[in-house]
Every structure is written in C-alpha cells, then in structure tokens.
C-alpha cells in the first residue's frame, strides 16, 4: 500500500470508503450504508439508504424496520458508486451474507464481513474473491479453534435429543435466533422429520428462511401451546432466554448451546449448560488461513475478535498484516446484544492500528 489514503478506513461512524462516499456496516447513522449481513452488530438502523445482497434483503428489512430504504444487488452484480465499482459475493455466514468487493482504479479491496468455509445448507457457499487487500474477520483466530462438520454436530444434537426423549426430558437448545437456529433446523432435516418448537424470537426469522426456499424441519411456536407436556420435545431458543421465567415450563430439561466457543470446556462449564455443541458460523483457524491464502491478497487487515493474534501470526509468515478497530462483536454479539452507540467504545471511535501486534490495543480517550 502506498502513502495515499487507504480505500477503506475506520472512522467514528464505521468503515468508510471515501472514493465511493459510503460506509460498510456503520455503527452510527450515515448517508449510504453497504451491509454485509443482517446481524445486529453489522446492520444498524437510522442510515438514509442501504445496499445489500438480494438474498438477505428480507432479513435486513426485518432488522432495520419497514421504513428503511434498502436497495439490493444480486451476488456478483456490479454497481458504480462514485469513483468505485462495488459487488457483493457470498460469505457463507448466514442467509444473504456477503463479502463486499470494491474496485478503484485497478486496486481491489474485499471486506469479508463475517464468513465461514464449512458447508451450510441455509446459504450460498463462500466465494473466493481475488483482491489486493483483504479485510478479514478474526473471531476465532487461535489454532485451538477447529470445527467439526455441521453434519456431524447435527448427529450429536440428534443423539442428545433421542437420549432425552428416551428419558422423558425436554431438550432446550440455545442458538442465535438468526442463522444458527435455521442452520440446525436444516442440518437436522436430513436426519429426522420430527417437529421442533421455537421460541417466539426465532419464529419470524425462520419463516423468512422458509420463504427463501430453505428446507428445514417443521416447526411450531412454544407460546401457542403453553400447557402441554414437553417431555421428549426439542425446543430452540435464543441464548438470552436462558435463566428467564420463560424457561420454567421446561422443568427438568437438558440444555445445550450451539457455538464455536463450546470448543472450550471452560466456556461450556461457565455458561452452565449441560451440553455444548461446537457449531459456528465463523471461520475456524484453518479456515481463516486458507481463505487469506486463496484470496492472494498482498495485505490483510483483521477486524474483531482476536485480531492481534492473527496479525502477528501472518506477519511472522511474511504476510503484510494490520488490525482494523471496529465495533463488530463476533459470535458473542451476533444478533443478541446490540452495542449501545452511547457507550464509551463508540464515543472513542475507532482507529487504524498498525502497531506491533504483541501490545494490546486500547481505545484512545
């Protein structure tokens, strides 16, 4: 990269492309926002206009409200904005998730958003997009994070459900309401045809997935059948429902949680669930390294999560790498806790960090 202004840079509103005068996944209201996917830490309302990949528009409309103006591009379709040409390419994260390719005078940047390389029946597979600069997520950037296949995890979930059924217990599986829940329903559809019960927060998103033609197990909403015997049933609920009065009806249920964090025994025990299923919509360590290699990028900028680790490792491997500070929350924040723009982190804004990766970054105040 030469001394010119980088094509995309962090600002206090989010990642900004000056040559096109737009933001990518801004965390404050802006004029034009390009959105990688509909999770709360990437899609925030209040901007004047939005542009996203067409398979994700219905989810985005739901997230942002009916009055938000959302324009769509098919995957691969190019559009000129200001001095740049942009296009959206499948990221394999959730339905409609996209990497954003930006080309400016022959220079290509790709902003990955969140992505994964493992097959997922609910969304288009990740597409490798060659580029000069690759802005990658880094949620799980340690070699301890290696995912088993989704199919295998689905079989584990089914075994757990069967065991609980045999012993007359309900199974309550906590999954993020957007993406993970539907992925589980779709993976399980290959193994059984039993109905699954959904928490009210999961139902509308699942309907949108069905409308998009995703095949999943039949579902019913829990609230419609409050006084029934839950023994033997599988219930899918967002993690936020754990420990709430809503859970009382499932007395004696076995609880499980689907997340990449469940790879670690300590995380599993800390959260107090009976079972942890290692299922993530983010790239694991081999997935990150493979993707970075395949894009052929000369420079890699890492966002959220353990970006320091990835940056340092890449540098030691001779790859030019840096960290980009953003407010993306990764697997913990996705679709759950939206970050209050009034917090100190947002007020402090974001800054590009090219410092040595061994020292931790902290917000300038």
């Amino acid at each position: 990269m030469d001394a010119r202004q980088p094509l995309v840079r962090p600002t206090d509103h989010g990642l900004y492309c000056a040559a096109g005068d737009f933001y990518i996944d801004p965390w404050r209201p802006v004029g034009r926002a390009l959105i990688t996917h509909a999770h709360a830490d990437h899609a925030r309302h209040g901007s004047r206009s939005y542009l996203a990949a067409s398979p994700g528009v219905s989810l985005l409309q739901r997230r942002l409200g009916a009055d938000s103006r959302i324009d769509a591009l098919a995957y691969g379709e190019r559009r000129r904005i200001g001095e740049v040409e942009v296009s959206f390419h499948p990221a394999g994260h959730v339905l409609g998730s996209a990497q954003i390719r930006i080309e400016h005078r022959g220079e290509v940047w790709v902003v990955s958003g969140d992505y994964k390389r493992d097959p997922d029946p609910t969304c288009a597979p990740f597409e490798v997009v060659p580029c000069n600069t690759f802005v990658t997520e880094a949620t799980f950037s340690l070699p301890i994070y290696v995912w088993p296949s989704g199919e295998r995890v689905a079989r584990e979930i089914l075994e757990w459900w069967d065991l609980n059924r045999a012993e007359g217990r309900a199974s309550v599986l906590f999954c993020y309401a957007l993406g993970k829940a539907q992925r589980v329903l779709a993976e399980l559809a290959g193994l059984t045809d039993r109905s699954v019960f959904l928490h009210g927060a999961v139902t509308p998103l699942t309907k949108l997935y069905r409308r998009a033609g995703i095949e999943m197990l039949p579902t019913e909403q829990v609230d419609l059948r409050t006084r029934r015997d839950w023994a033997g049933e599988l219930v899918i609920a967002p993690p936020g429902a754990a420990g709430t009065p809503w859970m009382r009806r499932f007395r004696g249920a076995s609880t499980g949680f689907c997340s990449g964090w469940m790879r670690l025994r300590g995380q599993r025990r800390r959260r107090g669930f009976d079972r942890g299923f290692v299922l993530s919509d983010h790239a694991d360590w081999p997935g990150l390294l493979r993707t970075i290699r395949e894009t052929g990028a000369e420079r890699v900028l890492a966002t959220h999560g353990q970006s320091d680790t990835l940056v340092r490792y890449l540098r030691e491997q001779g790859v030019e790498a840096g960290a980009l500070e953003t407010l993306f929350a990764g697997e913990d924040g996705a679709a759950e806790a939206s970050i209050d723009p009034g917090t100190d982190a947002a007020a402090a804004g974001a800054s590009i960090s090219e410092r040595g990766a061994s020292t931790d970054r902290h917000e300038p105040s």
Partner: protein
Amino acid sequence: MKAFARLYETLDATNSTTARVAAMRAYFASVPPRDAAWAVYVLSGRRQRRLVGAAELRDWLQRACGYPAWLVEDSYAAVGDLAETIALLMAAAPEHVHGCDAGVDSVSLADWLELRLPSLRDADAESRQQLVTAWWRALDPAQAFLVTKLLTGGLRVGVSRALVARALSGLADVPQATMQHRLMGRWQPTATWFEGLLAAADARAEPSRPYPFFLASPLEADADPSVALGQRGDWLAEWKWDGIRAQCIRRGGECFIWTRGEELVTERYPEVQAALQTLPEGCVLDSELLAWRPGDRQALPFSALQRRIGRLKPGKRLREEVPVRLLAYDLLEFAGADLRAAPLQERRERLAGLLDDAPPALGLSPLLDADDWPSLTEARARSRELGVEGLMLKRHDSPYQVGRARGDWWKWKIEPLTLDAVMIYAQAGHGRRASLYTDYTFAVWQDEDLVPVAKAYSGLADTEIVRLDRWIRKHTLERFGPVRQVEPLQVFELAFEGIAHSARHRSGVALRFPRIRRWREDLGPKDADSLAQVQALLEGQERD
C-alpha cells in the same frame, strides 16, 4: 481408558446429580475391579505425585505442534487448562497422525496408572519427551486430555467424594456414610481393595483410617442467634480457632494426625505426636493444631503456624520458636468403640476426663460459659484481640455427622476487616473462568504511587465478572504475557480475615483470605485507602 474417557465425558456433559451418580455406578459395575479401584482413586480427588512439570509440557507441546511459542501461550490463556490446550492443539496440528503407537488407545486406566505413567519416572529427559509426545499423537483428544491430566496429577472431575460414595453405596448396598468412612485415609487402589469396598461387612479395618469430618455451616456475621438457634441452653459455645483442623487417632500402638484435606501429618508435629502417645489405646479426637508458646495466653497468629506446615521434619530451633499444641473439642472413638452417634454432651464429658492428666501439648478446647446470647455476643466481639475467628456453636445433643450436614453445628465468624483498593492488574482465570479476566491485583496509595496489597479471585457476581472483563479489555495499558495492566480507575472493597507483616511483598503486609466484597463504582481511585491506613490496621491488631 476408553471406558473411563466415556465416563468422564458423561460426567462433564450433565449438571444433574442423579445422572452423574447413575453414570458412575454403571461404570463401576461394568469395568474390571482393578480399573474401578483406580477410578475411585481419581474420582474421589486423590492424586499422585506430578510426573512432569507444566513448563516442560509447554515446551514439548510447542515442539510437537510446531506453532510459535507465543501462539501456544495465547492458546493456553484462552483455554485456561494446559491438558486441554494440548489435546486441542495436537488434534489440530497438521502433522497429526492417529494410531502411530498402535494399541495405545486401548490401554486400560489401571495400566496407565500402574505401568505407562510410572515408566516416565526413571526415564531420561529425552525419552520422557518422546514417550509423552508419542502418546499425544496416538491418542484421540479425549484420552490425550485425560492422560495429560493424570500425568500432571491434576485431574478434577467435578464430582464430590460424597457423590462417589453414593454411587458405590448403591452398588454395595451399604449406607452412604459407611461408604464415605471406608473411603477415608490410606488405601491402595487394587482389585482386592475394590472388592472389599463393596463387601457387606468391612473386613479389613485399617488402624490409621480416620472418620469423615463433620463440618459446621456458616451463620451470618450479623445473625441474631436467639432467632436463628433458639435457646442458649441448647447450645455449647467454644472459640473458633484459627489453626489446622486435625483428627488424631490412637490405635494399634501408633498415633496418626490427619488434616481436613486427609493429609497424614503426624511426623510434622513431633511434640503433639509424643503427647498423643500418652492416650489410651483406641481413641480418636477431633481437634485443632495451633502454634502456641508455653505460658502464653493465646495462640500465635496463623502466619506463625504456616512456618511449620510445610516442614516435614522441623528442626529444634523452629520447634522452639513455633511450638505446636493440640486443642481437642470432640471424642469420636473411645476404647475402640465408635462414639459418633452419642450426644455431643456425653462425648465432651468423656473427652474432658480423658485429657485430665494429658501433657500441656494436648489441651481441651474450653467452653464459653456466657450463659445468655447477649453475653456470648459480647464475648465474640473480643475474638480478634484473642486471635480467634469467632465462635463455634454446637447443639448439646448432636451426633457427629458426616460432611456439611446443616442444623447442629454452626460457625459464627466475626465481621472481616475491609479496605478500599484500586485494581491495577488482571489475569485470566482457569477452568470455567478461562478467557475471562477474573484474577485481580489490588493496590493502595503510597504518596503518588499505587502499591499492590492483595490478589483476589472471588466475591463478584457472574454478571459483574463479565462486565468487568469487558472493561478490562478496553482499558488495558500494557500486556505482560497473560497479565494485563489496566488503568487504575476501578475501586473495590476487599474483605480479609487478618493482616501480617511480610517481607515478601512490596507493601510489607500480607492479607489473610482477601476477597472482593463490593465493586465500589461510586468511588474514584483517589478515594481508595493508603498504605499508611493499612499499616494502622496491622498495628491496631498487634496492640490488642
């Protein structure tokens, strides 16, 4: 080992006590008695001498998995458990090949513990490394984790010994308390031992075997005993000593001193050992070891006793400086008969008679005669100046029960000392607190500097821990390996039981049992206490 790995996985995958007991019972019933014996050993929390140090394991891991040392360290910090880090990194290492040590997957638990692991003991450094890394490569992650845990001596399974006893008592059809007693003290995990454990009658009474300890429940510091406990006359009151709880056994011509942690420490306290030899054959005392100089009115502080704890054979000079004596408060066995079902009052009377002519190193823990609650409450208020932790309140007619049975025995400690200190460092915890910053260092002011005074790990609610963890990540000034230096902004109220001089700490003081009492978000760093104020606490304590 495969069966044990499955059991471990089952125990780990449920929070239900019933399910855990059922899983253990099924395991004990299905594996050969030799493996079952070792499983009881491991599950009930017994551990063997560590065969390999953590530093060595980390070094071997780094060489075996091929990642840079810092990345291995970062991974370890995220996982919070070395054996698990090893299992995860070895499973993911690109050159990982299963099955290169054919058959190692099916080595039994007993063979691991009796043959494979002990073989490391006499091996030289290089072959130790080769052996262990070959196991890591050949074993599946679950077994690699367990083998590594066993070789560091540190497998914790998360089942209490009472739960293991419950599973075994169901299998043997004997009461749980009986099984708990059979699991006490010294035993060798062999097939014969396991078969004896399950026998209807206890064939081999081992003279050194202690009874399970009866544990008191805490009474709130500000409780009103007349409301909580009723009539003063139903209760016996004594000081809660700040020493080491010990069960002393006089049987078979020998004597044995067991700590609460079931460590046999007889040889460490020769003066007490000699005094116990004067007791008649066949008696067992529940008691407290205290550092106490002849003629003194009260015990030396616990920090003095600490000098004796680690010393296997204390020298003459140390024994003179820190003489140890025993204060007995209960009699569990007399003339070879188990007295535990008898009322406490009766046991105490016999105990007093027994100790009538005992040497000074063997005393009777006195009863407090304050005959109503108000005067007893007044006596308790003098605890700190007497160097005791508060009061023990025991029901006169109580039997000596097993474990923490509520209702008959209460410990009524005095309010702890407190100070307000600033958090300056944070470190990630281990186990279930891994990858969360939960271990904090606190400092107080000395002029314009903050001087560390205590480390504390406990006291915050889970939600507070998560919130503080986020704050720490955003306010890190510098990282030193796993430790983060944070902006000195957050103030915490620390509670602690006592304070002593310490040459090892920069502040010159050491706090006893420091823990976090409250996160003082209402205070700024300048509101925290100064070192002078802390030292005043120390002087106040000494003046009394």
